[in-house]
């Protein structure tokens, strides 16, 4: 927890010192000015404790989010803030670096999910690592900063324009109905909730997911989304591939992705589609700092 004077606090400090100096130097009786200066000092001193008390005891945890932002949306992430005390906590601010990104207040015994939205520079993996919770309650001259030690990672996926009918190769209806289960596997964070085998969970209290037997491959067209099919600029090629993947996903085609030095084998389903999009989002993505505390770059986790 760190303490600092805000810029207006510095001004007021200088003002108070000036008042006291002038009051002491003034040839006429300036006891009122001295009283005024001392009042400002004592109020400020008390408010430091109230500022500290306003942030003491709060807990902040990140909330895992399965839905990634697209380039048409702001960068989003969520935090859960809990106030386990009977104190009303007004004037709380979540900061990234020195930039205020969310202002909120907490009632006694209250907890809130903070939905944070930030501007971004396009597709890629974004790292948020200088989050802090600050407050300048009650008089705004002092700020107590509580650094949040966890680092967050969130994705902005490329978003391609929807293909028109003329671009559609085949308008195959989506295959529906029962499918044969290949086996049960342990649940991973990226697995769909629809694939959880609830009966097993009810019996064993363990989360397992169903893996299905691949459908007859001959029944569905197989396509490859290849980087080298055209010679447009990088971003345009990525948009092109995203559009193709989107189209293939909607039409339930098996598709694979071939990028320079990277190949994702053909597959089907949401998880496969998401994996391809993540790969496209991070491909040749520049590493750069968007703002203090927010950087765009390669992901540390395997895709």
């Amino acid at each position, binding site marked *: 927890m760190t303490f600092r004077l805000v810029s*207006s606090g510095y*001004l007021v400090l200088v*003002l108070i010192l000036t*008042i006291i100096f*002038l*009051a*002491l*130097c003034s*040839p006429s*009786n*300036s*006891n*009122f*000015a*001295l*009283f*005024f200066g*001392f*009042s*400002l*000092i*004592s*109020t400020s*001193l*008390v*408010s430091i*404790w*109230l500022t500290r*008390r306003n942030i*003491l*005891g709060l807990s902040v945890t990140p909330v895992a989010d399965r839905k990634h932002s697209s*380039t048409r*949306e*702001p960068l989003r992430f969520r935090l859960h803030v809990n106030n*386990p*005390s*009977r104190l*009303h906590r*007004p*004037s709380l601010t979540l900061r990234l670096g020195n930039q*205020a990104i969310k*202002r909120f*207040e907490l*009632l006694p*015994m209250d907890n809130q999910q903070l939905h944070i*939205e930030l*501007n971004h520079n*396009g597709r890629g993996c974004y790292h948020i690592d200088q989050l802090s919770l600050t407050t300048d*309650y*009650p*008089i*705004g001259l002092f700020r107590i900063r509580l650094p949040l030690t966890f680092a967050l990672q969130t994705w902005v996926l*490329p*978003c391609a*324009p929807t293909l028109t009918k003329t671009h559609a*190769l085949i308008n195959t209806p989506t295959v529906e109905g029962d499918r044969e289960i290949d086996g049960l596997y342990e649940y991973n964070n990226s697995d769909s909730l629809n694939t959880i085998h609830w009966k097993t969970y009810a019996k064993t209290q363990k989360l397992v997911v169903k893996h299905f037997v691949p459908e007859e491959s001959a029944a569905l067209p197989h396509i490859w989304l290849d980087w080298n099919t055209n010679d447009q600029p990088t*971003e*345009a090629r990525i*948009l092109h591939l995203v559009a*193709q993947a989107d189209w293939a996903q909607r039409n339930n085609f098996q598709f694979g992705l071939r990028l320079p030095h990277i190949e994702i084998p053909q597959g089907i389903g949401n998880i496969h589609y998401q994996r391809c999009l993540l790969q496209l989002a991070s491909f040749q993505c520049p590493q750069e700092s968007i703002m203090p505390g927010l950087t765009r770059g390669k992901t540390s986790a395997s895709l």
Partner: protein
Amino acid sequence: MTISATAPMLDKFDIHNTRALSNDALLMVFTTLCLASYPYLIAIGWWFIGMVAAALTTVVLHHIFPNKNLHTVCFKITGYIILLTTAFNLYRQYGYVHPLTINGTVVIIAWLKFSDQHPYRDASGVLLIATILFAESMIAGYQHPFYLVSCLALILATLITINNHRLRVLSRFFVFTHGRLLLLSLPLLAILYVLFPRLPGSLFPWQIPGVNGWFDAQEKSFQQTGQLNGISPAQETIKALGETLNLDQLSTLGQSDQRVFTATFTTPPPSLNDLYWRGAVFWKYDGETWHMRRHWKRSETNPPTQQDTLNPHFPITHYKMQLPAHGRHWLYGLEFPVEHPKGTVLTNDQQLISARKLNQPFEYEVTSYLIPYPPGKLTTRERRMAHQFPRNSNPKLFEFGAKYFDPNEDNSVNVANKIASHFQNTNNGFIYDVKRFPKGGKHSMDDFMFNSKAGQCGHYASALALALRAAGVPSRLVTGFRGGRQLHSETNAYQIEVTGSMAHAWVEYWSLGNWWRIDPTLLVPGQTPNIIPATGDSYNTPAPLEDQQSNNDKKIFETFRNDLEKFIDFSLVYYNTQLQQQLLNKLGLGHLQSIHLLLLSVFTVGILWVSMGWYLNRATRDKSIDPALVCYQRLQKTLGIAGLTIKANEGPYDFMQRAIFLFPEQREEIERICLALIAIRYGKDNNLKQIPALMKSINRLNLGSGV
């Protein structure tokens, strides 16, 4: 399949994280700025109020039409014009280094600052400027305790509302926050104010010598006697003859026979009966109190010519005045002063005003004519003021005066004499009595003229001045002292002392191009043209019992007010090195040097501050348990004693169902408690205020002998 190449998505989303400013905060900033501007609005005058109003109008219009470029440019230009015009006018009026020039310009800047369209930044800026103005006013000597307290409360309230935009000023939380901050800061403030070393003159040799005369006198007195000088009753008398005149003032404050000032004449002095020591001149009457005009102008009278001064029959006199320090600007001189010393101003009301407040005894030489001289002229504005009769007050007196109305101004002397003779007529029953007051309120003069008919010089002068106004004769009230007591000293045979009991009030009316003095008190039956002490003990007749009681009540109130004023004066206004030393002596810390005192004050404040922090943080830790959970656990325990134990996987709703089943006679109460707890713990309404009531309900549950 072709997809056109598009640039990467670099859209910036409209994400607002800037601080909001509530209407309450805006209102508080506005009020703070009004209060900060108040001394300057009063001191500079109407044209400045107009400029502030123009600045405010510009800002309001700017907010109404915020996004039109042309308007913005126009408003900015208008703002600059207002600012430059004000600054130029102030410069012309006061000069460029005068505090009113600088502060007046700053006031206009603060008002125009509202138009920058960055609400939070503007509000903070305006508040900072307002704080500077407050501080400057106080450093310059604007000493009103109410002003000080209002400043502090407003600054704090504004800071809180600016930084907590969801807080409403009238909410309980705001009042609690504000009050707690003020209360907690009081001990620190007291320590700093009392213990922080005062070092007049020791650190800063550039102080103007003698200006701190009051402090010097105190220091001398303390060194010699070990005690401080108080304010003498005579000084209080002078102090009381200030900017306003309440009609009860002369009798309550002028009862001292102590010397107020002395005058030393180089030639034999005029007859003691002719000595009218002119002080304040009052033009405006609001029904209860007389007020001076707000703006003094220098007198445009010419100094006496050499021919005049050489004429042995010309009524001119030259003398030296010695006045004690009284903290005000007032000086006194025999009617009518025409020459005044350096450092003083002679106004066109023939008042002598010191350029500085009299914080030390002051000696000055004056030349006075004993006749109204030289002839002047009455401006339209002055004439209007001299005819002013407050509406809805004293209708009988107005009717009485209006009977003598004469449009011919040359007959003013006759009109004045006729009205004044009303007091002289023994049939009318007027008596002089300082202990009997007419009824207060807006019709006090009606009561004096037609009912009580008893009062002192202030009442007679006020009644005559108002009656003259009703009769169309311009008039005004003058206060000061009348008479004097000759001192027989070996060194100088022409020395006269004036005491507090000689405080007096009289009337001046305008006729034939001059102001003429008329003293109605002298005409009251039983009076002689000899000197009449304002306290008038010799003219005292026993007052009726009821009046005595009323006067006693008034005296108690006056005594309380005086004591309070003295307390504020000594504890706040005049607290200095000597008072501090006296206090330290009492505390057994008299031997401490300034540096030790500084360290002691910092150390004490530090200790208190740390204790305060410990207390506040302790409160946070102790209250970190969810009260709703505690309440639910109490319910479980109560029901457990009665035989119903909660299961490990049982939620509150199921627990409630089982409890209702087992204790059907307490069904409603159990259901109410449990549903309330569920709503508090899991619902949207986090109303913890219900918890104490629920606890009481749980304690009152009568579950019989158990299951």
